[in-house]
């Protein structure tokens, strides 16, 4: 019975997509009922798998049309749900269900909603199928449906500024990525004559790496790099997240780029199993480190709420990629945990951005301000999200970022490689910059002066607040009850990624892997020291109070008189005193102007690169793919 659940969940979503288009394009009630029914049943079906897969440690396999393997050859299309798949499937169903609930009121004033819900269900179904399939070509098809639906949804509000452009860029870069993936899959098929992941994994590990498989690996990694938007493939993401309807931005950052991360893990750890090679580790970690740094520095200069969140999304994916690139159990655990937390807090932040857009009609940081008085509930949700992403204890972001630091530093100590220590420092600095840019957003949107034209702003309807509450609660709970999350979600998923034998045997029959000489990679079960976020919170409070007493007690900290006769521009004064300065509004772009001035050269280069011209972005994609391919050919053994 239970083995039918995954495929039913995927089929229901696609069936729902058709039914919405046929029956619900005119009638709002039927449309919403079908959409929420499909989404809710899919949610329940996937949650029902937690007990057998996560707790009892089963692996669920399903052959479409019962085409089971004959004589050790997989013929049919198989679905295989191990703990890693289920981990991502849980993220996917949670995200799209909450996004669906939010859409009901957020999108209510738009036209052509039948198409919106059709595409929404297609996107949900394709990502769910992508994380649960056991067949590489099926994976490619799901990737294509995902890209297709994403593009259409990006350009959905096509009367708005920039939507068509963003959709087109997404389409060009996305389908280049898909083509790379397909070429890689074709090469694997040429080598192994099978499309089943389990069988490919078994055959590749006994045959060793040939030039064909190295090429295939490089192309598939590049393809999934495009889907997870690591730098320099990230350019369409910033545009798409910004202009898509917010409920869709949440889906993009919560599950579409997680699908790319899942693909990377599946390919690197399970299909090719190359993560024990130090050069591959270094390549992935460097891509991750560059991604997190460029993402956060670009975010600091943005004037647009959702575009800023988009760059943060890219930056946080950098953490995930860095962590999974370490190749250790600790690294993988921290990467998965951060992926999960990113889904939660970034979804929450996008929802609050959507609430601001819904209530005020703009997301321009320079035009907003003082909304905390008008939208107190949204403000609290936003603060929880901002604290989580900045890594303050006891929120979830703190735990997973701490694990990432610990994983990279442990790696540096173990391998004696200095680069990993630098990566740890970069991760710390990026976290500080994340906090800085969220201070900017908080100040520019929720605190400060309320502009006159926003005086009549009202809190958003309850149907939009409920998803935000759920997300906020999850952010706090995952931070505090971290050991439970680790025990029931992260540890099984990490184990599933590192122990391939069970995965192969379940699909191809017992003893298949052993017959081909596949053995499990030695894995120490995610052994990390235990800590308690509450203790850290108390420690931080104590340090803060001590620092406060020391600083306010000393003379040098008191205010200094302005020099007479010198005209200060109050905009650029750090602390204000006096009448004129007291009422001057600090816009979102005014904070950190000093930092931006200091880094002028860096920003000039970076903004030049983000030129907005689609062919430039295509050039980045091709160059990065060429680099990945070259590195793999030179350094892989």
């Amino acid at each position, binding site marked *: 019975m239970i083995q039918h659940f995954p495929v039913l969940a995927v089929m229901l979503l696609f069936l729902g997509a058709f039914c919405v288009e046929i029956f619900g394009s005119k009638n709002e009630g039927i449309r919403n009922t079908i959409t929420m029914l499909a989404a809710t049943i899919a949610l329940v079906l996937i949650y029902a798998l937690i007990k057998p897969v996560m707790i009892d440690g089963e692996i669920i396999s399903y052959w479409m049309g019962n085409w089971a393997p004959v004589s050790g050859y997989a013929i049919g299309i198989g679905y295989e749900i191990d703990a890693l798949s289920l981990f991502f499937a849980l993220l996917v169903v949670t995200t799209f269900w909450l996004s669906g609930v939010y859409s009901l009121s957020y999108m209510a004033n738009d036209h052509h909603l039948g198409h919106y819900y059709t595409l929404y269900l297609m996107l949900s179904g394709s990502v769910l199928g992508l994380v649960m399939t056991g067949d590489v*070509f099926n994976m490619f098809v799901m990737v294509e449906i995902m890209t297709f639906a994403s593009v259409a949804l990006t350009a959905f509000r096509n009367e708005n500024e920039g939507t068509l452009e963003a*959709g*087109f860029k997404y389409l060009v870069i996305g*389908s280049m990525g898909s083509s790379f993936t397909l070429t890689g899959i074709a090469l694997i098929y040429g080598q192994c004559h099978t499309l089943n992941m389990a069988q490919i994994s078994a055959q590749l590990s006994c045959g060793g790496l040939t030039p064909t498989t190295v090429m295939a690996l490089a192309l598939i990694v590049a393809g999934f790099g495009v889907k997870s938007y690591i730098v320099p493939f990230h350019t369409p993401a910033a545009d798409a997240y910004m*202009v898509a309807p917010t409920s869709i931005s949440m889906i993009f950052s919560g599950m579409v780029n997680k699908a790319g991360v899942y693909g990377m893990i599946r390919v690197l750890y399970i299909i090719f199993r190359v993560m024990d090679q130090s050069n591959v580790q270094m390549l992935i970690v460097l891509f991750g480190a560059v991604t997190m740094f460029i993402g956060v520095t670009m975010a600091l200069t943005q004037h647009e709420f959702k575009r800023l969140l988009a760059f943060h999304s890219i930056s946080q994916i950098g953490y995930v990629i860095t962590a999974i690139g370490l190749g250790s159990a600790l690294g993988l655990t921290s990467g998965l945990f951060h992926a999960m937390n990113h889904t939660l807090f970034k979804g929450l932040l996008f929802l609050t951005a959507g609430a601001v857009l819904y209530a005020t009609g703009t997301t321009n940081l320079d035009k907003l301000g003082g909304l905390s008085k008008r939208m107190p509930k949204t403000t609290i949700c936003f603060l929880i999200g901002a604290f989580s992403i900045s890594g303050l204890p006891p929120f979830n972001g703190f735990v997973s970022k701490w694990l990432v630091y610990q994983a990279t530093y442990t790696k540096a100590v173990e391998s004696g490689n200095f680069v990993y220590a630098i990566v740890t420092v970069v991760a710390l600095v990026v976290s500080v910059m994340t906090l800085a840019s969220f201070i900017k957003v908080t100040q520019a949107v929720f605190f400060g002066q309320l502009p006159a034209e926003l005086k009549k702003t009202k809190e958003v309807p309850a149907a939009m607040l409920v998803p935000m509450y759920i997300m906020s609660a999850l952010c706090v709970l995952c931070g505090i009850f971290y050991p439970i999350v680790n025990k029931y979600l992260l540890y099984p998923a990490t184990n599933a990624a590192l122990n391939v034998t069970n995965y192969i045997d379940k699909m191809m029959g017992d003893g298949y892997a052993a017959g081909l000489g596949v053995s499990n990679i030695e894995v120490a079960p995610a052994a990390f020291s235990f800590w308690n976020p509450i203790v850290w919170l108390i420690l931080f409070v104590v340090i803060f109070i001590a620092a406060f007493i020391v600083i306010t007690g000393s003379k040098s900290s008191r205010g200094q008189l302005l020099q007479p006769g010198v005209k200060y521009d109050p905009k650029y004064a750090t602390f204000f005193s006096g009448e004129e300065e007291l009422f001057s509004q600090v816009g979102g772009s005014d904070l950190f102007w000093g930092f931006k001035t200091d880094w002028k050269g860096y920003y000039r280069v970076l903004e030049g690169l983000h030129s*907005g011209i689609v*062919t430039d972005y295509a050039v980045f994609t091709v160059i990065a793919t060429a680099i990945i391919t070259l590195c793999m050919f030179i350094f892989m053994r």
Partner: protein
Amino acid sequence: MIIVNYIASIVLIVLGLYTVCTKKNLIKVVLGLGIVDYGVNLLIVSLGFNDGGTAPIYQMSDLLNGVAPHFFVDPVPQALTLTSIVIGACVDAMALSLVIMIYRKYKSINADDVRRLHG
């Protein structure tokens, strides 16, 4: 398994990527994506080809007994190519419709003019 096909497919993929990277006209960019697709399709369909092979109608026992294991053309790549062609056609149609709408809005299909989102 014909070497000419492999070379041709690589040439097509590279030409397509070159078109996407260098041409500023958005329609040419879409054409470039199409050419990459055709190159990949040619690669896949060539992978399963056997010179002089027959239709893939056989029994498992024939294969296992070693009665000419390569006497037929592999059907799987053809199915993959068919799927890939359909997907490629959809992507092209969607890209072109986006270009039409971009032209209506921006009055230009030069990539240098379609850059309101940048930085």
